Each structure stands twice: as C-alpha cells, then as structure tokens.
C-alpha cells in the first residue's frame, strides 16, 4: 500500500449529516449501502485503509473466493469491484485513511462520530462493519521503540521534508519499503535499507533501481533483522542488526519500519459496547448492539451460531436495515418489496 493520504472528502469544520455512518468499507459494509439504499437511507463510510475493500483489498486481493452465492469464483479485488458497481446508484461517500475514533450520543438521540483526521459525521444510525478491526502498521516490538515513535522511528511518511538531511534506515522488503527508500534517498544525508533476506516482494523495477543505487555507492543494503535500538531517550544513533553471519551495528538517526499492517480493535473497544472475546454482541433479530441506534454486522460480531463468512455479513446487513429504517424515518411505514417486481426500487437502482 502507499502512504500517500487519499481523501475523497477533506475534513470540513461543519459536521456531515447523513442517515447511516458505516465503519468499515469491506464487503459487508459495502453491501449494507445497497440494502440501506433500497430503503432510502444515505450512507457515509469510514475506513482506516487507503482503499476500499477491507481484508479483500488488503489481505487477499488476488486470492480466489468460492463461497459467494451465485458467484462461483472471484478474487477479493473482483468482489470489491462488483459490490462497488452494485451500490453505485446510491452514491455513498467514502472517508478513507482515517480511523473511527470517538462516538458520542447527541441530545436528540443521534450519534456523532469523530475520525482520527478530525472529520465529524452525525447520523441517527451507526453501523460497525469493522471485520477484525482496523488495519494499523505493525510496530517494532523492541525496547525503546514506543518512546521513539514519531521522533526517530516512523511507520509512515506524511511529509518528505521531515526527513531532509537525515541518516535514514528503512526496514522491510515490500513496496512501501522500496518506494520510500527510492523517494527519500535524494533528500537524505545517507540512506540504507535492511531486509531479512535477499529476495524482495516489492515490484522488480523498484528493486532494480535500489540495487543500482547500492552499486553506485549512493546507499547501503543490509541483510538481517533489527535486534536492538541505540541512542539516548527519543533519539536514535544506530541499530544492531542480526543475521546468520552475526551482529552488526548500523549508525542512523531515523528508522522507517514497513512490516505490513495488522488488525486491531482500536478505539471502538472503549465506546461502551457489550463485548465478548473482543467481538460485539448483537440482538440477532435486528443486529443492534447494546447502544440504541448502533448496529454491528460481519466478522466483528458474535451470537450463538455465528460464522465468519462474507455471506453471513450480507444477510446481517439486510436484517439490520429494517430496524435502522425506524431510527432514520420514525414517522414512515416500511413496506417490504422485491427488486424484481417493485418499480419504486427499480427507480432507485436507475433501471426503471
């Protein structure tokens, strides 16, 4: 993944008001947009990844999925594309690259969600479709790593200027590691890359460019793993690298570590939701949580008999919308209709 912030809608001072705020833009969150759309509910989605699709996009874009009803075979990426096509008539808004941070109940019973980027969304319904949690960078589990984070140890690059004139060590073998090695090399005082083996999973072209820089004496390449950080307090003056050949000290004042992403529950663990083994408990008639108007669907929930399957999440989203409708339109009567026969639904889908 790239570290470039992609914001479809920049945060504004005014809260954005909608019918349904969906946390998580994975397959289940996306299908909830469809079911909500049929019932006239507008959706806005928040996701910490820089792309739409959740685990389908981040973990297994190229892996085949065989258990989507009526789709004998598709990849994670194809499933995301198909869902995006299906929900297109409902024009959902996506707020990517930001984590759902704070959830507060307003005096009128609606909910206010604030993201890590300061975006404020208000809606009568919040739907948590967050899978196994949000994707965050894997942090170095080494002594002294935590206090150095943001000072001499970084897991993402926000502004390249911060790194001008630094003695940089980049760790990792994927595209993020290679891309930032190549991008920052010209502004750095010195640049080095460390990876645990000679093979890189990054794009071959980037690997070739890195090797040219090494051959030209413009940067160093180390094979090994970081075993120790050195330097006083938040500062870094070098790291110990371990390899089968032994240990080596590599001087540097800035460490950029790209070890991929992992999933963690994150701030929603502190919202007062009833949890069981880090999963959200729901009423299976409505998929509402213990907080009125806050629903949860997909892999993040638990109930007797729950299976973590995408198809289960689709079913849960359809049922959830029936109760969500009552929060959005308390005065209106809900009539159950089929897309096959209802001209009203077909108009919404843009086909009638």
């Amino acid at each position: 993944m790239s570290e470039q912030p992609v914001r479809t809608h920049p945060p504004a001072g005014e809260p954005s008001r909608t019918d349904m705020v969906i946390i998580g833009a994975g397959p289940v969150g996306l299908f909830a947009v469809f079911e909500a759309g049929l019932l006239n509910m507008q959706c806005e989605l928040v996701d910490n990844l820089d792309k739409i699709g959740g685990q389908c996009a981040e973990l297994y874009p190229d892996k085949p999925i065989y258990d989507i009803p009526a789709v004998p075979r598709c990849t994670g990426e194809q499933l995301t594309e198909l869902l995006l096509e299906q929900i297109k008539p409902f024009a959902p808004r996506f707020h990517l690259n930001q984590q759902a941070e704070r959830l507060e109940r307003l005096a009128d019973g609606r909910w206010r969600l604030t993201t890590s980027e300061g975006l404020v969304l208000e809606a009568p319904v919040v739907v948590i479709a967050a899978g196994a949690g949000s994707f965050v960078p894997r942090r170095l589990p080494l002594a002294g790593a935590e206090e150095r984070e943001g000072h001499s140890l970084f897991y993402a690059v926000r502004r390249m200027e911060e790194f001008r004139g630094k003695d940089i060590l980049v760790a990792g073998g994927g595209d993020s590691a290679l891309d930032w090695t190549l991008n920052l090399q010209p502004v750095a005082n010195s640049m080095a890359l460390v990876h645990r083996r000679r093979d890189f999973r990054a794009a071959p072209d980037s690997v070739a460019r890195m090797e040219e820089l090494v051959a030209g004496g413009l940067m160093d390449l180390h094979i090994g793993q970081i075993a120790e950080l050195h330097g006083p307090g938040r500062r870094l003056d070098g790291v110990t690298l371990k390899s089968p050949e032994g240990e080596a000290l590599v001087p540097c004042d800035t460490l950029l570590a790209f070890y991929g992403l992992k999933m963690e529950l994150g701030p929603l663990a502190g919202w007062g939701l009833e949890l069981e083994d880090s999963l959200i408990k729901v009423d299976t008639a409505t998929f509402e949580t213990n907080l009125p108007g806050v629903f949860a669907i997909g892999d993040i929930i638990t109930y007797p008999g729950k299976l973590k399957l995408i198809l289960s999440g689709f079913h849960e989203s359809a049922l959830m919308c029936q109760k969500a409708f009552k929060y959005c339109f308390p005065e209106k009567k809900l009539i159950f209709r089929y897309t096959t026969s209802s001209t009203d639904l077909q108009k919404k889908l843009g086909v009638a």
Partner: protein
Amino acid sequence: MASIVVTDREGAEHVIEGTPGWSVMEIIRENDLPVEAACGGCCACATCHVYVDAAWLDKLEAASDEEDRMLDEAYQVQENSRLSCQIPFAEALDGLKVTLAPEF
C-alpha cells in the same frame, strides 16, 4: 492418537491431539492456544508464525515462495520459521514439536 507438542510464549509445553488433514495452525487454534491466524489460513498474513523443532524440519514439505514472502511480515524470523497454516498435519508427523513465535 497422533499428537503435536506446542510450546507457548511463556515456555509451557502442551501436548495436543493432531487431526490428520487439518493444518497445524487449525490444530493449535482449535485447542485454544493463542495463535491469531488473522487471515484464516490462506497464507495472507503472518500471524500463525511458529518455530519448528530442528529434528522435524526435514520431515516437512519445504515452504513455498508465497509463504517465504509472507514471513517478511513476521518478527524474529529464523531458519526454522514457518507459517503453521501452511503445514498440513498427517500421522507421519506424530510428535511434531513447534514453538509459538512472538506476536508482532
């Protein structure tokens, strides 16, 4: 009964029943030992990382390139590092010894 010996992160040894046809990750997980296996066993993360006892290394099929690539996202990778979802268990592996790698 075929079994697997799993050393957890605190150093305690657990002898658990190994079901032939299941992956080592599935056997560890179904015995409630702490293996995250975030991707569910499709070699798309590195959260089922184990160290295989030296005596058993040669008895396992070698890791695929895909598994080796995923190990880049693991911590403290060693020569005997494997992703346990990629080791199918069989009767012939009765007594297999693995150690849960540190979480990352």
